[in-house]
């Protein structure tokens, strides 16, 4: 009798857990961008650990990278080897500093050139699951200014948009996530379409939907933002056409796009916190983009 009661209690807990999971799913499907107080609290605990782990991981990668570089010169004689190692280490450090400086300069250039208010953010985690292409960023300042749907950019192009803001950190839905949709233009043909992420590809890929067959694109064609919707500024680089899938029937072309942003190497990004100003009534005096802005003219 006791055994039966215990068994029934076990099953009741399991069923309750499953129902709770389904309830959470339902709430999440209704309000995908909202986090509960509990979620925010958990994220506040998780984010510092993620940041610390990311810092350590980058450090280890740097050390490992240097080791790999140095093993190639082991066969040289000892004197040259020592000198070479020292010079290489210095050179690598200089390159690293130059690269970092260049990255920040490009980011500053992008910030100056973007016709909208932006804040900088640092990527602290990426792609924990291959089925959801999401990065987590920590903003520099202005906690609470980031909202769902705000565009996220790098000097190379569009990264995605804010999905779940939580205090100083936010989830960024990358362009390559299947839930992402972005209104784009192919400047060479003027064709417009919707850029969607391709889930679970062995690479970061997107496809264009609703691109009319009457405006045929070619491989290598640039793809930029259309500015429709007002969130993303116009003419920001998005990617390049890498494949036109033959045999598609219907009104629209089947086109694959490789984003200009290397999502595997994301480190620093800009979040557009205010939309660009209204179009200039005098079309003769355009805003001139600054250094580093990936704007296609």
């Amino acid at each position, binding site marked *: 009798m006791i055994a039966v009661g215990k*068994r029934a209690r076990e099953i009741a807990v399991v069923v309750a857990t499953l129902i709770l999971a389904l309830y959470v799913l*339902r709430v999440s499907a209704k309000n995908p961008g909202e986090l509960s107080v509990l979620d925010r609290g958990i994220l506040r605990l998780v984010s510092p650990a993620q940041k610390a782990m990311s810092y350590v991981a980058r450090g280890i990668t740097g050390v490992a990278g240097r080791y790999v570089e140095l093993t190639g010169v082991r066969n040289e004689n000892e004197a040259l080897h020592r000198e070479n190692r020292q010079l290489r280490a210095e050179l690598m450090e200089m390159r690293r500093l130059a690269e970092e400086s260049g990255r920040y300069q490009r980011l500053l250039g992008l910030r100056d050139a973007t016709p909208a208010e932006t804040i900088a953010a640092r990527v602290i985690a990426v792609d924990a699951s291959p*089925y*959801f292409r999401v*990065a987590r960023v920590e903003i520099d300042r202005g906690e609470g200014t980031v909202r769902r749907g705000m565009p996220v950019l790098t000097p190379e192009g569009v990264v995605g948009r804010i999905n779940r803001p939580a205090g100083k950190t936010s989830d960024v839905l990358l362009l390559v996530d*299947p*839930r992402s949709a972005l209104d784009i233009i192919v400047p060479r043909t003027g064709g417009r379409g919707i850029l969607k992420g391709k889930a679970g590809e062995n690479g970061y890929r997107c496809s264009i939907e609703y691109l009319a067959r009457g405006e045929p694109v070619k491989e290598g064609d640039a793809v930029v933002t259309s500015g429709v919707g007002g969130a993303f500024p116009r003419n920001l680089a998005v990617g390049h056409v890498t494949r036109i899938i033959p045999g598609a029937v219907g009104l629209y072309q089947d086109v694959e796009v490789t984003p200009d942003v290397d999502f595997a190497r994301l480190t620093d990004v800009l979040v557009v916190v205010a939309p660009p100003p209204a179009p200039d009534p005098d079309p003769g005096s355009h805003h001139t983009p600054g250094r580093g802005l990936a704007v296609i003219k």
Partner: protein
Amino acid sequence: MRSAATLLVAYLLLILQSTVLELAPVHMAVPSFGLLVVLHVGLSPKWTLSSSAVIAFATGYLFDLVSGAPQGVHAFVFTLMALFARALTRRVAVNGIVLGAATSFVASLLASFLIVVVRAQVAPEGGYGGLRQAPLEAVLTGIFGPLVLSLFRRLDGRVDTARSRVGLTRGPRGGGGTSLSMSMTDRR
């Protein structure tokens, strides 16, 4: 105590999973450490059915937060996977490296399939794509599986009470009352 320790290690593994890409030469897939936690609680005779389901839910919920997935996707799938693991123990004694790796591999494939199906229900715009990633993720999970499962077995051993160390404890799968704790082979 056991649950708290398991959740703490699960938390650390999930943090590792969300940042491990910095170290990985392939940036497309990582082993599913969260799933391995769930497999352990499902396979281990030291966990009751209900506690393994609750731990699986908590791990999945945490993973949803860490990974940016819609809340509930992994919580639901991981709970189902805990039940799958428990059902598996009725037929197979998952002992040793090969069986541990094979179970992790198969469970990862199954979990991937379930995640894609549940994702398609919650976020229909994502469709059913994405299963191309599943084999690589399953291979990585299979490689890390025996290691992580062994780590959790050791952890379980360390948090055992003095009574259970000498073999006197309430059997989690027994019908109540004090009984000798049994290994999986014994029960079979």
